[in-house]
């Protein structure tokens, strides 16, 4: 009996170790047939990794929905040179180490031709070297940390970077709004937050503003009262909080609890349908950088917003918009590429010029970052997001 029991344990263990196959959106493909598909004229496999669960769950979910809408549109319009595309999705649970595992799996087991993801820069930084060493092109829709594309010539990006976003927001608050003093609260465990905090500080000081207080927290903290208490006596006009939406909502609430009334200002890490749900009234008057506005009258945006609303019952956020563009840019490059091997596809992506996307015209520069993306500033007003201003990046 005991032997039987231990046998059962061994069987269960080995089952759990083999793990579950990645979710695939249209039909299922076993690994063997998947590889055959890629070689012959079957479906083209594209890997996606993202934070479908965990602390930044809405980042991954919005991105996934943006990619799916684009992929379905492309397939409905005849696919890529007659072949359908198929997205294989892996969840990294908002953890960089899981992101590396997910990407290794997509490349080695599923032999995908390209990788899409992530939003969080820490996760993209963990996955990029793996794509680079396997010569599989990776497009990150929305990681803004400049280091991501510096990992190698197979890594591309669809959004503006923090060394643009941080200074742009500093210019906006210092010059347009006439803010003189700011406090900075960064997440020390987050590459994105640390760099964005530094970039903002540099430009804000150059613009004649003064950083009156600086404090930091660690990703996953719930209690920010101590840091906010240390910031409060310096009485800043704004709080620069370049964190992610889960933390920002709580920081806003605790700041109001402590009697801090200055608006919180942040970057695109705030972009989430959950932001206002978490922060509630505490976020009134706070504003942040976004990648596009769903009120944009252009037909490309209108088509995307309507389709997204129809399918998912909500307005697409900036992460969904960038993911949609990333999928289209990839499909467009695959159409132009003669073959779908790594180096050829890489060259085709690098040659992307003048692609009309939801988040503006996409021209990839020599550093594989888009040139001249616009930045939309959104403000929370009466629990709704309204456009406060738009900044057009200088072409250089």
């Amino acid at each position, binding site marked *: 009996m005991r032997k039987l029991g231990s046998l059962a344990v061994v069987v269960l263990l080995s089952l759990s170790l083999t793990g579950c196959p990645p979710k695939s959106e249209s039909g299922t493909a076993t690994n063997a047939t998947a590889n055959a598909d890629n070689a012959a004229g079957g479906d083209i496999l594209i890997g996606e990794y993202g934070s479908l669960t965990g602390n930044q769950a809405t980042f991954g979910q919005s991105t996934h929905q943006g990619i799916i809408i684009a992929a379905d549109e492309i397939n409905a319009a005849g696919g890529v040179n007659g072949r359908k595309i198929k997205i294989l999705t892996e969840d990294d649970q908002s953890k960089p180490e899981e992101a590396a595992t997910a990407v290794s799996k997509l490349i080695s087991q599923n032999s995908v031709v390209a990788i899409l993801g992530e939003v969080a820069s820490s996760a993209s930084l963990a996955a990029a070297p793996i794509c680079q060493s396997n010569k599989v092109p990776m497009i990150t829709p929305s990681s803004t940390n400049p280091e991501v594309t510096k990992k190698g010539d197979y890594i591309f990006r669809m959004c503006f970077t923090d060394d643009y976003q941080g200074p742009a927001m500093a210019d906006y608050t210092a010059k347009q709004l006439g803010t003189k003093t700011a406090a900075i609260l960064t997440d020390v465990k987050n590459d994105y937050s640390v760099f964005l905090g530094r970039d903002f500080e540099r430009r804000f000081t150059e613009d004649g503003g003064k950083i009156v207080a600086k404090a930091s927290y660690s990703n996953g903290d*719930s209690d920010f009262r101590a840091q906010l208490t*240390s910031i*409060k006596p310096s009485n800043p006009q704004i709080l620069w909080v370049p964190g992610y939406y889960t933390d920002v909502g709580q920081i806003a609430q605790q700041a109001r*609890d402590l*009697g801090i009334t200055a608006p919180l200002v942040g970057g695109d890490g705030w972009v989430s349908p959950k932001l206002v749900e978490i922060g509630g009234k505490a976020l009134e008057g706070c504003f942040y950088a976004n990648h596009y506005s769903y009120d944009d009258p252009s037909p490309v945006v209108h088509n995307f917003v309507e389709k997204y609303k129809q399918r998912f019952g909500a307005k697409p956020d900036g992460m969904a918009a960038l993911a949609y563009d990333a999928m289209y840019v990839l499909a467009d490059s695959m159409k132009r590429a003669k073959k779908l091997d790594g180096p050829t596809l890489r060259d085709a992506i690098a040659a992307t010029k003048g692609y009309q996307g939801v988040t503006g015209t996409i021209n990839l520069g020599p550093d594989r970052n888009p040139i001249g993306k616009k930045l939309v500033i959104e403000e929370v007003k009466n629990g709704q997001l309204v456009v406060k201003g738009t900044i057009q990046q200088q072409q250089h």
Partner: protein
Amino acid sequence: MQELLQNLLNGIAVGAIYALIALGYTMVYGILKLINFAHGDVFMLGAFVGYYAGRWAAAHANSGHPANYFIAGGIMLLSMAVCGVFGYLNERIAYRPLRNSPRIASLITAIGVSFLLEYGGQFVFGPDPKFFPTLTPKHIVHLGGIVTTNYQIIVLVVAVIFMGLLQYIIYGTKFGRAMRAVSYNFEIASLMGIPVDRVISTTFVIGSALAAVAGILFGLSYPKIEPLMGIMPGLKAFIAAVLGGIGNVPGAVVGGLTIGIVEAFVGGSQFSNFRDAIAFVILIAILLFRPSGLFGKYEAEKV
């Protein structure tokens, strides 16, 4: 000065929650010499019961907003009951069969139960953070120069009530006397006719119910809850129990408050990065210089 008082108040509010969890650690250790590593996860369970009950109440309350202290109290009692039952089953199923095995076996089992709750919680509740409902309206309260909310005051009042209640149970009732006897020596206690099994079960129930209270209070103050939320507060409460002298009930309260206050001051200083580290620094220091804790009695172990 104001900043000092503000940090002190913030620290006491967090410390009270640590203290409630630490009481559960210390009671179980006092009686069984077992460190119940699953205790931090019972705290998580308490918060989740409160989350689901609070959402249910919000959906069914006539006003659509359960702005009512009675409902909040009811939710807390429900959560205490659920966690109490869990504590009972935990002891009955996982620890009692190992009572006469070497202590390390129970310790490893406790770690196993902890993992079961953490990852079972991820499976059942989902790994995404959830946002605890607002059970009662929140106001800002000005006390002299410092600012607080009625929530922090609720946390303090509720924590003090339950600590007082526990003190009464242990030192003022017959059951408490039985508990102290079992903790002194459970073999002799059983010879004296004390129902040792029942005393141990009840201790687990009380400890788990206190963890549930801490979970609800934590959810009110810091509304983000997720299945792994018990790990850090659980560890810190454990350190608080060691700091106060593990097995010593007033020591757990003092230890919890100390850790909370120290963390608030470190978090508010320029060393805010080290806030989580400071509890562990305290642990190392106490183990090096006073292993029996602030209030613990030093006992030479017979070999």
